[in-house]
């Protein structure tokens, strides 16, 4: 069991190398089969995490060996409930992405599936890493395969979109590297030139160690370190105003690229906040709280409005991601268990719902080679099954009760409304406007594409979903309904980690007595460190 995380992380890489060296590039069938098999095996192995999860323990399946002893770098893997859910989503969406590519990718297939699998290794490794150096390595490794996936198999402006994605993310992550260095110095020996005394602990990049010592960092320094993390993660999320790479990347990427991008890569940013920025830097978090909350709300509403006016379906879904990720950020920075739980759950939900929407848009694009809403109309008559699946995905994305999106958004709003950190329900109110707008752009999209007369003759010959596409969508729909109706197993996974994070970011939170959610926010003065300062 010690090696389970290594196995899950490196199965895709080994599979990629096998394809690279042992499968002839003209044999597309074998390549697809191999890639799918690797992804399915990886998913099945990752289920071990689900079934062997111990809700009473925080860090599980740990694996630790020295890697670069002279720098204090360990090869340290370990996961908590949050990471397990994200890993499961990664391996699951990996299958969806690979299978959905059968009909979409017709050239350079060998490289394509190899890169998808390598990307998989990078993503899983990022979620597993409990050493900051290791985390950074995996974080950067993800960039290159995604660059190629957009750049080789993308649309008309693929070169521009690929390099934009690459440079934006890289610029953010190198600043994050400096923040990691600052944490390292603080834990190790301090920086004499800046008059920052250190703790003289053994040099380490251990995330768990930083969790312990982070709050001892002087608030000024915490602010700067947090800023470095903020650039690294907020660009990835992406938060308004760092979101401009996202529509380009999504629109140009092939369907599978969009699915992975939306479902997993964006979660890297939110995961980074919840795993590193919040627990390590409580003071930094507080200082950046209001700006981040405001940017989240702007993102929610701006993303929704921009979605409303899109003519391109894929771009619409891309901008809706900006809006949805705003919810995730808003819930997270409520700094109470409710908000963070909703935020984590919404990461999963967004992956499933938006992944499904990208998949559906990709299906119809393969048939008609256009994504313009104006080219469609009334195709529900021609493709009833497709219309039904699209409806479920759209409803899930807009947060209809009994589907997954509702649980996440509702929990987030509840958390944000009751947040003593925010101290006002204004953010929740504005965010709720975003939900209404979400219903508007999705239903309007649905109406224009599926209802009305079937007046474009090119649409008269559209074929409904085939078995493979149906299978993929059914898998996603089952998840949507399951999470929507019975989310408790997922909440069980994130209960303890969220508790841990809240304790780190707000040590006084649970001392205030039993956790209640008063209708009116408590006076901020009663509340921990704000008062302490």
């Amino acid at each position: 069991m010690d090696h389970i995380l290594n196995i899950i992380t490196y199965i895709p890489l080994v599979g990629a190398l096998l394809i690279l060296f042992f499968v002839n590039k003209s044999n597309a069938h074998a390549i697809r089969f191999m890639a799918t098999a690797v992804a399915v095996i990886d998913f099945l192995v990752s289920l071990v995490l689900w079934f062997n999860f111990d809700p009473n323990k925080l860090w599980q399946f740990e694996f630790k060996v020295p890697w670069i002893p002279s720098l204090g770098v360990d090869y340290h893997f370990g996961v908590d409930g949050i990471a397990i859910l994200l890993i499961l989503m990664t391996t699951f969406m990996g299958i969806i992405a690979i299978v959905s590519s059968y009909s979409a990718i017709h050239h350079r297939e060998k490289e394509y599936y190899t890169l998808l699998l390598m990307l998989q290794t990078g993503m899983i490794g990022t979620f597993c890493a409990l050493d900051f150096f290791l985390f950074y390595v995996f974080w950067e490794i993800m960039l290159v395969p995604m660059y190629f996936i957009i750049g080789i198999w993308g649309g008309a402006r693929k070169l521009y979109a690929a390099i934009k994605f690459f440079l934006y993310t890289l610029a953010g992550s190198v600043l994050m590297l400096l923040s990691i260095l600052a944490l390292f110095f603080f834990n190790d020996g301090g920086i004499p030139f800046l008059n920052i005394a250190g703790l003289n602990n053994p040099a380490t990049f251990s995330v768990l160690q930083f969790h312990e010592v982070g709050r001892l960092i002087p608030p000024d320094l915490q602010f700067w370190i947090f800023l470095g993390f903020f650039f690294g993660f907020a660009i990835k999320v992406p938060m308004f105003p760092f979101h401009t790479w996202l529509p380009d990347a999504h629109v140009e990427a092939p369907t599978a690229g969009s699915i992975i991008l939306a479902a997993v890569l964006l979660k890297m940013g939110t995961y980074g906040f919840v795993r590193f920025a919040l627990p390590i830097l409580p003071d930094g978090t507080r200082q950046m709280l209001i700006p981040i909350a405001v940017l989240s709300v702007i993102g929610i509403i701006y993303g929704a409005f921009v979605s409303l006016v899109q003519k391109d379906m894929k771009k619409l879904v891309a901008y809706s991601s900006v809006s949805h990720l705003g919810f995730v950020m808003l819930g997270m920075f409520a700094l109470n268990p409710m908000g963070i739980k909703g935020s984590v759950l919404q990461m999963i939900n967004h992956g499933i719902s938006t992944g499904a929407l990208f998949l559906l848009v990709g299906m119809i694009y393969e048939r008609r080679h256009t994504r313009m809403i104006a080219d469609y109309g009334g195709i529900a008559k021609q493709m009833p099954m497709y219309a039904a699946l699209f409806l479920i995905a759209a409803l899930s994305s807009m947060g209809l009760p009994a589907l997954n999106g509702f649980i996440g958004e509702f929990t987030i709003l509840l958390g944000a409304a009751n947040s003593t950190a925010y101290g006002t329900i204004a953010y929740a109110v504005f965010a709720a406007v975003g939900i209404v707008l979400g219903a508007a752009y999705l239903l309007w999209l649905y109406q224009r594409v599926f209802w009305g007369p079937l007046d474009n003759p090119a649409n008269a010959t559209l074929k409904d979903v085939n078995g493979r596409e149906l299978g993929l969508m059914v898998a996603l729909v089952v998840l949507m309904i399951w999470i929507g109706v019975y989310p408790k197993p997922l909440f069980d996974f994130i209960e303890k980690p969220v508790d841990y994070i809240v304790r780190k970011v707000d040590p006084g939170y649970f001392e205030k007595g039993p956790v209640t959610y008063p209708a009116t926010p408590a006076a901020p003065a009663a509340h921990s460190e704000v008062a302490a300062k």
Partner: protein
Amino acid sequence: MTWSDVIYLLPEVIITIGACLLLLAPVSGFRSTGSTAKWTMLVLLAMTAGSIFACSYLVENIDQTRMFASMFALDAFSIFFKLLFVVTIGMVVLLSDDFFRGSRYSPWEYYSLLAFALCGMMFMASGIHLAAIYVGLELMSLSSYILAGYYKNEQKSTEAAMKYFVLGAVSSAILLYGISLIYGVTGTLNLTGIARQMSTLVTNDALMFGIMMLAAGLCFKIAAVPFHVWTPDVYEGAPTPITAFLSTASKAAAFAIFARIFYVGIHHFRLDWQYVLAVIAALSMIVGNFAAITQDNVKRMLAYSSIGHAGYVLMGILAVSEMGLYGILVYSVVYVFATLGIWATVLVLERGEYAGEQVNDFNGLYKRAPYWAFAMIVFLLSLGGIPPTAGFIGKYFLFYAAVEAGFGWLAIIAVLMSAVSMFFYFRLVMAMYLKEGREATLPATNSLRFVAAVALIVTLLFGVLPSPLIDTARDSGRWVATRSAALVNGR
């Protein structure tokens, strides 16, 4: 001085005798056109490497053993760089292979000049006396000037040599002037002597002027802004293997003396020169990387990128800390191998019907030569500092040193500029993988394949398992580092 010390000069003696023999061979009528010259040179290098190893075992104190009136030291630091130089020159020789096949230029004098340059570089690595360092530097530089113009019938090559020589001579003069001022104030040219004298002095203008002159001369050698203008023209005009030589071995040698002089000799006034070097480093990174974006010629692009890399290394020098020095050593290795790999790829393209110099010539390389294209990506990622390549480890040390020394702003510029650098490195990646090119097979030779394979292995291996490299750098740099800083911050 005792005559028995001469034994420690064995590597230098061997390479000098060898260089003379290579020079004399064609004069005595022995003018074989085959690969005899190459093999002679390689054997010579192998003997040099062997004698360096032998010396490292013979010397009684590996930390620092001085000889010849404290002009010359055999220590772990110099052995590290000497081995790096020998390996690099060996790679350059392999790159130059078949460059002369069927050409009107003789390989013998060429290899002889390379050997003389190597001799100069080895003296630079070992010199602990400004005069000795200067003589070594001149030997290397004069050989380089001639090598840059080795294609004497081609205008570009001659022009490159001329520019390089005129500017190089001026910079040497400036360097020498700086040395003389330092001598005037301290009364000694020995680095440890200078350090001792300086610790008794307060800042004075003559000394500062001398230090600045010294820094300017050295900055010319490592091509830092504003002393960089020669670089693109020389890199473009020189024969490609010589460009490889100038951008790897020659630069590493300059890094070595820069580090030794500033760490051992004049660290006492670091608070005065640190900021100057910091500004130069920042300018080098900004100008180098932004100018590289606009280049369509690969040789010029890499020239500007090497200006940026000089800026990164300067961070290690101005930090005056252990991590800074180890960073310089690690980065020299990492940078040298990634750069050699890139030049090997460029040379492969030049062998074909391509000129190999334009970014467009790389179009569609993945189809014609998947392994070369893959190796090229690894080299470019390494230069850009993306894990899991060795370049990341090297840059990590330098960023670390800059932050540790209190130059957080410089570190911010450095990381942002390394993101900028990915823009032009990825222009090549884009050309290779995302664009379609002509269908022509690549005529790679075994020597080029060998160079690329070694560079690839080094770059990937030290990226994934950097510990051996770091430990070697640590062992090699310890004396110099602790010398300067028992040091700066007491850590």
